[in-house]
């Protein structure tokens, strides 16, 4: 591979025509588009929950407790006679926001040191890598529980824990891509004509390392959603009166025999959302992957 072809391979995502090509390629993947449509619709429904929910999610009606799905209550009612469908619409807000929170925290912790390690090399790089080794030696959920033990059980603390858990992967990804971009000739050229380091980082390095990040963001949104659901199920995440899908399942265990629909529907909601996020990630990877392959 010659230097010039490497260069086009790396800058290709930054130029507008390449972006259009990438979007066209992504749009051709029906599964990924379906995943994207699902997530967009779900987000809109969650945002519009107060207006589109058929019932008040907190309205108690003790005459209709633990009913199965029916025409008036699509997903049935819970132990206090509250409408499960309406509750799930509101819980979607918590679940989606929590996943977003965790991914943003992971990006904030992982990306800057990854960039620095990739550019600086030497003992800074070495130290950063050993730190991620240590973090990755912990079984993931055990580390989350340990962090929650220190900070106290709450949704924000749980998402800080999940963010810390996910950050080493972002860090390593950033480091690896930064290293390869930093050795490109256009970075050398920029440096030789006297550009400052911060100019090189913001104008040459950053635009070329973000695309692989998007694949990981999409997949990790799914991972974060699963982690939030698991922690809230255990009672370590979302605290009453708030509710996420995972917390709904956790509270319904007592009624598993009488009203399994209380568990079935929130669980399916989690599974489909996570699947949609993974599919988007796969689609992004394929669209990006081919871009790099054809250009280099």
């Amino acid at each position, binding site marked *: 591979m010659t230097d010039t072809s490497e260069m086009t391979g790396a800058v290709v995502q930054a130029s507008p025509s390449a972006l259009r090509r990438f979007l066209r390629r992504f749009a051709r993947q029906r599964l990924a588009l379906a995943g994207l449509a699902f997530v967009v619709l779900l987000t809109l429904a969650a945002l519009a929950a107060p207006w589109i929910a058929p019932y008040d999610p907190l309205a108690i009606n003790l005459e209709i407790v633990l009913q199965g799905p029916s025409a008036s209550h699509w997903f049935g009612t819970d132990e206090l006679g509250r409408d499960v469908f309406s509750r799930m619409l509101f819980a979607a807000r918590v679940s989606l926001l929590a996943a977003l929170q965790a991914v943003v925290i992971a990006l904030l912790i992982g990306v800057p040191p990854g960039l620095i390690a990739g550019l600086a090399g030497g003992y800074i790089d070495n130290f950063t890598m050993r730190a991620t080794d240590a973090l990755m030696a912990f079984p993931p959920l055990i580390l989350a529980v340990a962090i929650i033990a220190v900070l106290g059980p709450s949704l924000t603390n749980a998402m800080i824990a999940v963010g810390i858990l996910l950050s080493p992967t972002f860090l390593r990804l950033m480091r690896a891509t930064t290293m390869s971009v930093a050795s490109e000739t256009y970075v050398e050229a920029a440096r030789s004509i006297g550009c400052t380091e911060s100019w090189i980082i913001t104008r040459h390095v950053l635009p070329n390392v973000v695309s692989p990040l998007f694949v990981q963001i999409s997949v990790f949104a799914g991972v974060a959603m699963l982690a939030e659901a698991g922690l809230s199920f255990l009672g370590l995440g979302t605290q009453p009166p708030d509710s996420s899908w995972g917390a709904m*399942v956790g509270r319904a265990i007592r009624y*598993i025999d009488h009203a399994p629909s209380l568990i079935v529907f929130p669980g399916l909601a989690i599974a489909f959302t996570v699947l949609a996020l993974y599919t988007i990630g796969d689609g992004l990877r394929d669209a990006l992957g081919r871009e790099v392959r054809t250009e280099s």
Partner: protein
Amino acid sequence: MFRFIAERLLAMIPLLLVVSLLVFSMVLLIPGDPAYLLAGEDASEETVERIREELGLNEPVLVRYGHWLVGLLQGDLGTSLFSDQSVSGVLLQRLPVTLSLAGAAIIIALLIAVPAGVLAGTRPGSLLDRIVTVGASAGLAIPNFWLGLMLALLFAIRHAWFPATGYAALSEGVLQWWSHIALPSFTLGFSAAAILTRQLRGAMVDVMQQDYIRTAQAKGLLKRSVVIKHGLKNAAIPMVTILGVQANALLGGTIIVEQVFGMPGIGQLAVASVFTRDLPMIQGVVILAVFVAVLINLLVDISYGYFNPKVRPQ
């Protein structure tokens, strides 16, 4: 081989030191006075003082870390703030539950993933391949606590084929043990099976296009022996790496699965200890979990040598 293992063990020491420092500093990271916090709001001054003494909070930090580390090396992880039992005693008593759960889960994951991955990977694009791929995607997205509850509902509550909760030690009979561990270990192993299947399928598709496979076929070997001896053995190399990562994830997953099936293991202890604010117990759980995880990864590294002679030490 011996030197290889010795080098690996030596390389673990700095890592374990860093981990021990992180786990120790949990006490330091608790906002406010940990003794007051751990004792609860309406604790007497004596209780707070006792906890302060127990955690050694009156001494300088480095001295405390030194004491703690020396204790750790001797297997002394302190005393539970909740039950006054020795942490290492409680952990040892519960460890077999968690290890048999995680071990059975890995075996189930492999029993699903190896045939599914090989069958799908040798027939890319077929109906079977598509079924396996869809199943693997579902396996990645389904929350394990939900899968566990569904299995418990179907096979323990609606049909009483398995007990819904509890655990029986191996000494009580293999059948007893298996009936208690079947549903939990399937629950725990399912997502690992999905990841391993995807990985193995991809690797098999690649490997089966290699020249040495064509050579093996051309010299008239049975299809089975081409697939297993030449295909699977090469495709297994990346899978072994994933297996190490997955073993780590499975150890974490026991926290949730033990809760679903009411199994008296380490994971259940970890959750209970968060609610009782039993910090020494949580520290013990974390240290033990990391230790087991590091040991598993050592085993994975050693098994590379079997699959890939290139990394075998001379």
